[in-house]
């Protein structure tokens, strides 16, 4: 178990998330509605509302190292239902981008099976690579 330390340098890292996503993470009041509706919440290490809280406390890495941004479906359910109008999907994207911009691949074309490549629609490839490769 780790202990949470709120430090200034951690809080500064959050500014990057804010900048890329264009969202004010501090307006989240932890109602949990994003988690309630999230189709992927059951798969996430950290559910969306917890992710918001970790970010408020400066724990960017905790969230970006979790599977959360990578099992997000960009379905925008959280964004349309957040009572505070926060675009949580954009925050998930920011977390992905921060990682991808370090030249990180989450999906790799070579790892896709031959027969899958035959049947997958082009939009599946394009969107998956857009979301999960640099």
């Amino acid at each position, binding site marked *: 178990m780790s202990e949470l330390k709120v430090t200034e340098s951690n809080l500064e890292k959050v500014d990057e998330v804010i900048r890329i996503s264009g969202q004010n993470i501090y307006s989240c*009041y*932890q*109602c*949990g*509605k*994003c*988690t*309630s*509706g*999230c189709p992927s*919440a*059951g798969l996430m290490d*950290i*559910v969306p*509302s*917890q992710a918001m809280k970790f970010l408020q406390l400066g724990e960017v890495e905790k969230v970006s190292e979790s599977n959360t941004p990578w099992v997000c479906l960009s379905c925008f*359910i959280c964004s349309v*239902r*957040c*009572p*505070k*109008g926060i675009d949580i999907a954009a925050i998930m994207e920011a977390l992905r981008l921060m990682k991808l911009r370090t030249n990180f691949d989450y999906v790799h074309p070579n790892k896709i099976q031959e027969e899958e490549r035959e049947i997958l629609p082009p939009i599946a490839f394009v969107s998956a690579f857009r979301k999960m490769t640099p």
Partner: protein
Amino acid sequence: MAEKPRIGVFVCHCGLNIAGVVDVKRVAEEAKKLDGVVFSTTYVFMCSEPGQKVVENAIKEHKLNGVVIANCSPSLHEKTFRNAAARAGLNPYRVEIANIREQVSWPHEHEPEIATRKAIAVVRATVERVKNNMTYIPYEVPVTKAVLIIGGGIAGIQAALDVADAGYEVYLVEKSPTIGGKMLFLSETFPTLDCPQCIETPKMTDVSQHPNIHLMTYSEVESVEGYLGNFNVKIKRKASYVDFDKCTGCTDCLRVCPVKAPNEFDRGLTKRGAIYMANEQAVPLVAVVDEKYCIEVNFQKRVKAGKVKPREKPVCSKCVEVCEADAINLLESNEKIVEVKVGAIIVATGFELMDMKKLPEYGGGEVPDVIDALAFERLLAPSGPTAGVPKRPSDGKIPKSVVFVSCAGSRDPEHGVAYCSRVCCMYLAKQAMLYKHAVPDGRAYNFYIDIRSNGKGYEEFVQRVREEGDLIYLRGKVSKIFRKGDKVVVWGADTLTGQKVEIETDLVVLATAMVPPPEIKKLAAKLRIPTDEYGWLSEAHLKLRPLETVTAGIFIAGAAQFPKDITDTVSQASGAAAKVLTMFSQPKLKREPIVAEVDTEICAGCGLCKEQCAYDAIRIDEKKNISVVNEALCEGCGACAAVCPSGAMRLRNLTKKQVIEMIEVLTENY
């Protein structure tokens, strides 16, 4: 100011509120250099007793004929310092406030130098203004010692009884057929679990029997004219087609009416006839005919409109036939306008619940077994349609599990309601408890964001209910509710465990947001009182004048101002009544003399000012072709002076000359 100006400037620190940002010493020093200023000083809390003494002493010692207080908003302490000046023998209207808190130190918190320079400029401008201030004496107006109370819920009832018991006349106007308001819907009240039948109905009876109370149910305020102490009110007694004096409340008519209309007293869960009574506790216990639904009334209307030919026999006269008291007449509307004169008005119009249509993710009112909390109150009430054992609307089964959803629309700016409705946490706990009493093997879930139980005995109540009822509290806002087979599926979360939660349940109760009644905007316009961004009535000052509106003589009580529980509502109602009684205890009322006045030499009677006036205080004298200000009605807002093309209309102590001089000082450096 004909005499030479001798102005004193008093700069307040307001603790650190002002002095923490603004260099108050420098402001006072700069002020002293100004032409006409003979004295200046600072003090830590100018509004305190010793602070006021500083002002009083300086007025006497330096023979001041003008005073500038640099402090907070005039809505807070203008009166304080005007009274202090009066005690020191200076005409109170020679005192003006330079607001250097709300308009300087607070907005410029992080820029002290700019704030200080702005404070100096504001003080200088106010000094210029005071130089031209004149002496005025308040008006006296007579007062009609009767009060109009709009809304017959628990707030209106309490206020009516308080004023009536003090010996004054009360006109209590209620739009529905009975008084009692929303409280009458309730099963039991938190945290004491009194039933409204036990605690509210006796008060309702007192109202109906009180010799000083004129009860006007099924009535609406049509128009309001006049001013503080002298309002003329027209009240519309809506067409009920029943003579209330003759009706004995026997209920024979209710049994024969063939119409089935949704019964609003059961939140639409049951049906009522076109002729109906609210319930057995209705006060007055009389029937009314709902024009919208009555077959005969609608037929007669179409006859009058020439759409159908009259018939010899009525289309439906079942109720008329059974009424032994001969109280019903469907052929003629008995709508009438009643005029009353009152000295004061209390607005106690209460609240409504947000329409479930606004919550499409929660089923949008389309899922029968998703109901709002007032409907569930009816299902829990021993006097309700299910005699206290809840049965769900879709199939009449007793629900074996109920999910309660807090903040359904409240604390939700995206749904237009950013505020907390304040009572939901409490009543949901109570409802869960009553449900468990009625259905001991039932399961109650409560989704909440925060439990707000800040009242006497409230937190203890919630904790007790949670412990005793094996209630499952889940911390998270519900995202989606839908019907699946004969179940209702709720998608929620528990953020404390970090889990998404799905519950299949029999019934869902939404704590929908408390919102202002839709008619409130129209009524507020008639009364010339403002509402806030949501439509709640605005108080004159949230902290210090919460029961008054900005229009003198009009008071507010209860949830009309903002969501409130019964305790707070009743306290406010008694408070508003006390305000009225204070007014009535004086033989004459004083009115502020800072009103608009017309220079009759210049006025051309164009009437632009009349159009601008929100208080109806201006009329055009047709003969002389000039406008005339009714000083008793004028609230001194200055809209007329601003619009007057010739400069004939002016606001006392804020004349065009004064305004221009202030602007000149303020823009000097630009």
